[in-house]
């Protein structure tokens, strides 16, 4: 056993750092889960332990087969964790992830056959691309991200913290190890992810959906860093994996408490958030600041490093300013609409039922933020590169300009106070596809769901199978006819 571990695991400081971040995120989520009265808590903890084992195997190992086993363990354990929420979401998650992990198995075996016996840099562009698609289902590369807002926004808060904070990062950790010299498609996929998901987050009316889309958007930054192949950007993405993981965990956990105290998930219902729950407000604002990359906190450091990906081209530099601006836009919009949507007249009524979050919640929410602060102080040690001057003053001024522009834009559009949208679900996604098809046909669009669309897809598969079954002969006389047919086939083949 010891030989197996020592022979296949790599205890480099990078790996240990990643594993410990993952473990901290899991522990924080477990602490927070104690505030929700879940049944079968011991099973919940066991699933968490299997999950920890799974991601440790993924991160530590140099052996592709152990990597695949870990990947499947993470799929199974996160599926089991999702069962504490909604069964239907868990089912959707399992089917999508199972297809993804099977494709990854195929890709990994192809990579092994190409001669890459251990996990390490891969030079072949096609194999890199296949690997990116393979991990893309779990890591929500654009195009394969469709399940993420559905699952992350509907999962119970501690589980969505694990999923959004760490599970989606595992694919990028593998890409960090394999795509060391950059991949231009990953780079452009990253830009597309930041823009697309950022706009979706800007238009979100549900807090957890906003967070889910912001996860995709931030993953885009990581993809840019890895895809560019720039030395600093590469380490910037490594730092962003850790920083974003911690911040997003804190945010998703706090979203659980927000939903508890506000009794709604719509950000328009988060009135007087500042009065109701000052602790939670401060933590949420801190977390969002990390996401936006405001100086001093580590989010700035990682984004500063990732900006080296732009290289010397001036067009890309402006694009990168735009990308940072998108994050500021949706962060500031939420801070205004969600937390500082104050009404002084109602303040007096609120004094009585003011929520003070408990010790579990406080420790769960504050611990990741403290860690982010610590990382800020020592980010050059963590990235392992000799880079100490982060141009803080310059960054501060630029960030203020971002904020000014964002506030102006948001003011112009009345803080994007759009009509409330339904929470995304598999059914909505499918009906959108169906409407697209009807639009091509010229038939009128469906207004709302008539039938369970998820079952319809299922029925398509089963009906196809039934067609195959009906196509085969039913009487024994005709069934026996296959014997001479196959005999002839083999004889002809042989001749």
């Amino acid at each position: 056993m010891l030989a197996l571990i020592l022979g296949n695991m790599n205890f480099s400081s990078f790996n240990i750092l990643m594993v410990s971040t993952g473990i901290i995120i899991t522990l924080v989520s477990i602490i927070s889960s104690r505030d929700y009265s879940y049944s079968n808590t011991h099973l919940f903890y066991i699933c968490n332990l299997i999950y920890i084992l799974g991601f440790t195997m993924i991160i530590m190992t140099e052996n592709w087969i152990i990597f695949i086993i870990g990947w499947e363990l993470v799929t199974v354990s996160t599926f089991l964790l999702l069962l504490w929420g909604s069964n239907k979401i868990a089912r959707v998650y399992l089917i999508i992830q199972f297809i993804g992990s099977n494709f990854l198995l195929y890709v990994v075996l192809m990579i092994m056959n190409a001669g890459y016996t251990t996990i390490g840099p891969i030079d072949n562009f096609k194999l890199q691309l296949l690997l990116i698609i393979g991990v893309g289902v779990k890591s929500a590369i654009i195009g394969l991200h469709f399940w993420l807002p559905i699952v992350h926004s509907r999962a119970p808060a501690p589980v969505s913290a694990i999923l959004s904070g760490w599970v989606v990062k595992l694919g990028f950790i593998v890409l960090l190890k394999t795509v060391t010299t950059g991949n231009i498609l990953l780079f452009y996929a990253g830009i597309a992810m930041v823009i697309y998901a950022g706009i979706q987050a800007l238009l979100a009316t549900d807090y957890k959906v906003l967070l889910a889309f912001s996860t995709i958007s931030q993953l885009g930054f990581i993809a840019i860093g890895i895809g560019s192949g720039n030395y600093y950007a590469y380490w910037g993405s490594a730092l962003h994996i850790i920083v974003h993981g911690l911040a997003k965990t804190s945010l998703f956990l706090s979203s659980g408490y927000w939903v508890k105290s506000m009794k709604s998930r719509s950000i328009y219902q988060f009135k007087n958030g500042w009065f109701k729950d000052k602790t939670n407000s401060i933590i949420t604002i801190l977390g969002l600041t990390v996401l936006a990359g405001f100086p001093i906190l580590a989010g700035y450091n990682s984004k500063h490093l990732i900006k080296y990906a732009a290289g010397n081209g001036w067009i890309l530099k402006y694009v990168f300013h735009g990308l940072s601006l998108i994050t500021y836009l949706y962060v500031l919009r939420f801070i205004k609409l969600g937390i500082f949507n104050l009404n002084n007249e109602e303040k007096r009524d609120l004094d009585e039922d003011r929520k003070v979050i408990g010790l579990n919640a406080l420790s769960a929410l504050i611990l990741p933020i403290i860690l982010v602060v610590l990382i800020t102080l020592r980010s050059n040690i963590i990235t392992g590169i000799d880079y100490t001057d982060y141009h803080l003053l310059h960054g501060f001024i630029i960030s203020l300009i971002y904020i000014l522009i964002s506030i102006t834009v948001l003011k112009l559009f009345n803080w994007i106070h759009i009509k409330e949208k339904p929470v995304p679900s598999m059914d909505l996604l499918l009906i959108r596809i169906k409407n697209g098809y009807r639009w091509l046909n010229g038939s009128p669009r469906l207004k709302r769901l008539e039938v369970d669309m998820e079952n319809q897809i299922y029925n398509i598969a089963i009906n196809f199978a039934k067609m195959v079954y009906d196509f085969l002969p039913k009487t024994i006389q005709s069934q026996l006819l296959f014997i001479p047919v196959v005999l002839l086939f083999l004889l002809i083949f042989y001749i």
Partner: protein
Amino acid sequence: MELLLLLIIIPLLTAFLIPLIDIINKKARRVLVLAASLAEFFTFLFLVINNWDDIADGTIFIIYKMGGWFPPLGIVLSMDMLSFYFSLLITISVMFLILYSIGYIGHHEGKYYVLIFLMWAAMQGIVLTGDIFNFYVFVELLLITSAALIGFRRNKKGTIASIKYMFYGVIGGLFIFIGIILLYSNLGTLNYAEISANFTTLSFNTQGIISILFLMGLFIKLGIFPFHFWVARAQSTAPSPISALLSGVVEKIYIYAFLRLFWMVFNFNYLQTTGLDKAIIFIAITSSIIGHILALQESDLKRMLAYSTIGHLGIIVAVLTVNTKLAIIAGLLHVLSHLLMKISLFTTTGYLLQFAPSHQIKDSRGVAQQNMFVFAGFIIAAAGMMGLPPMLGFFSKLYIVKSFLEKSYYLSALLTIVGSITALIYYARYIIYGFKKINLNSPQEFRLILSVLYRERLVTDIALMFVGAVIITGLIYKTFFGPLESVANLLHNPSIYIDFILGG
């Protein structure tokens, strides 16, 4: 060594003794059934202990000359690593299935035990014999006894299934028989080793026709795609232990025959030069994916499991035909994993179906309430079928895909993976229904709450034991690589076998 003969004689003799003992005392039969199955097990154990060093090296060769006649003339029983592997699987799984049957069927059916012991003898005979006509006799014995067991319930459905199975089995046997006639008329011998040594002296066309005849016979017996029509009927109407035996063990016997005949008796290189191996892979993979598709549309639980058997057998045959060392190891590993998983699925199903009004998946609502452990066992075995770690099914799937990719069979590898995704969907359907809660007190939801099993505890324990084996073998899967590698070496060098039989 006489132990080889004992492995066949003990079940054969027991089968004939059971009716006689029935006349004397019905209670004595219970003792006999139990004692005989234990005796068979301990004979095998004794054989293992006696030859432990050879088994560990992978060089075991035991020969028994019937009546003292030397090989080209007399019938020989022989055990090499390939026979040992399959004989081990048969001995252990059939013994536990007989114990399961004691709990499931009870002791009042004497004929059942006669037939199952005959089946056991036939299976051991096929695996141990070194004579091709002897092989044919045992195949027919297996066919007749298993057909009788399929129709054991003596209802209309069972009889139809049994006749259909018989029909296909006889035609398959006929192909094998014609092949044997051709072999004998051309070579004048029936001994495996003798045939193997002289097979290449035959003309090109004779070799081809003999191979194709045997291939047809084995395909029909295995239920590969265009001949799969008997499988679902036979395996769904038989009692659960017999379904488990048919799907888990009997099908594997034909896999053994496939390996023995095409690698060690006929010339496998010949198949590769004619390109016939590509045809086999094509048919087997088509069969596999169609088996999974048919399982998807099935609303009857046991038929669904039977169709999934077709899917997995197709993969096994295809991967063995790839004929690299890794491919043979992967195929044989999947033989073990499919055997364990299918037996655990059928045994748990046999228990769970006691609580459902019919075999329909829709009627299985609320079975999770009845016995959570057995239902969890079903889920674990199904997860193994889909290929989730740490079950053995994952590792065998992994190595199967790997060996397909090594020889650039990209589509076959992809279809293997598609098959396991399909498996997720059709097992999930049953599991979701199983977890639906029902109110046992309301008259609308009333169903059989009391189990009608003879010994309920025995049934659940053995079912869970097989499930445990699925997990444990998965955790120690690397230990199978050494022995299976020696099997692969043996298959690639049939001259070792020839020298041993004819020289010793």
